[in-house]
C-alpha cells in the first residue's frame, strides 16, 4: 500500500503503471479499479482560474492510512495506491488518484469507490478557488453515491 501527498503535478496513469509493475505479483490481481479526480475550470456555474489545496500535515496522512487500511481488509484487497495533490493547482491538473487491486472486480470496484468517498468526507483537505471576481473557499463536497 502506498499513500502519497505531493506538491507537484503527477501523471496518475504512469503512477498506476509503475506501482503495478513494482508492487504487484504478475497474474495475481485480476482487477484494477482506478479513480482520478481532475481540476475543472468551472464550479457551481463559475469559471475557476486556479485553486489552492490546503491540508493538515500529519493528520491527513493518518486519516488516509486508516481509511485505506479499513477498505483493504474489508474487501480483502491485494493492494491500494492513493496520491493526493496539495498546494497550487491549475485547471486540467490531477488532484487525486485512488487505485485498488484485487483478484476479483467486485472488491476492486467497491473498495475504490468507498476509499474515494471516505477521502472526500473525512480527509482534511480544503480547496480555495480563484475566480475572476476573487477567491472563495469550497464549502462542501457534493455527494458521490
Amino acid at each position, binding site marked *: 500500500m502506498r499513500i502519497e501527498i505531493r506538491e507537484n503535478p503527477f501523471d496518475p496513469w504512469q503512477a498506476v503503471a509503475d506501482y503495478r509493475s513494482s508492487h504487484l505479483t504478475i497474474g495475481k490481481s485480476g482487477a484494477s479499479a482506478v479513480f482520478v*479526480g481532475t481540476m475543472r475550470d468551472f464550479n457551481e456555474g463559475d469559471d475557476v482560474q486556479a485553486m489552492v*489545496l*490546503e*491540508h*493538515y500535515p*500529519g*493528520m491527513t496522512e*493518518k*486519516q488516509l492510512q486508516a481509511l485505506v487500511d479499513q477498505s483493504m481488509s474489508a474487501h480483502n484487497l491485494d493492494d491500494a495506491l492513493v496520491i*493526493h495533490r496539495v498546494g497550487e493547482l491549475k485547471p486540467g491538473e490531477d*488532484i*487525486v488518484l485512488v487505485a485498488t487491486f484485487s483478484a476479483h472486480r467486485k472488491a476492486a470496484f467497491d473498495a475504490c469507490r468507498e476509499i*474515494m468517498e471516505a*477521502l*472526500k*468526507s*473525512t*480527509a*482534511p*483537505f*480544503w*480547496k*480555495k478557488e480563484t475566480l475572476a471576481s476573487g477567491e472563495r*473557499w*469550497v*464549502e*462542501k*463536497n457534493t455527494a458521490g453515491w
Partner: protein
Amino acid sequence: MSINVRFFASLKERIGSAALEIDAQGITTARDVWTSASGQEADEEMLVAINKEYAALDRTVADGDEVAFFPPVTGG
C-alpha cells in the same frame, strides 16, 4: 500546562491565526479550547481533531494536547 490550538482553511482566516498556545487552566473540553482561543461561540458544523484524530466538541482535552478546528473537508 498548555494546549496547542490549530485552525485551518476558512476558520484560520476568520480567526486570523494558524496556531496558538493557550493556558490549560480552566479548560475541560475542546469546546472550552475553542471559546478561549477564538472568543466566539462554537459553530456546530465545525470539525474538531484532538492529537490529529477526529473528536467530538465536548471531548475532554488534556494538558499538551493539540486541538485543531476546521470547516467541512473538501478534498478529492
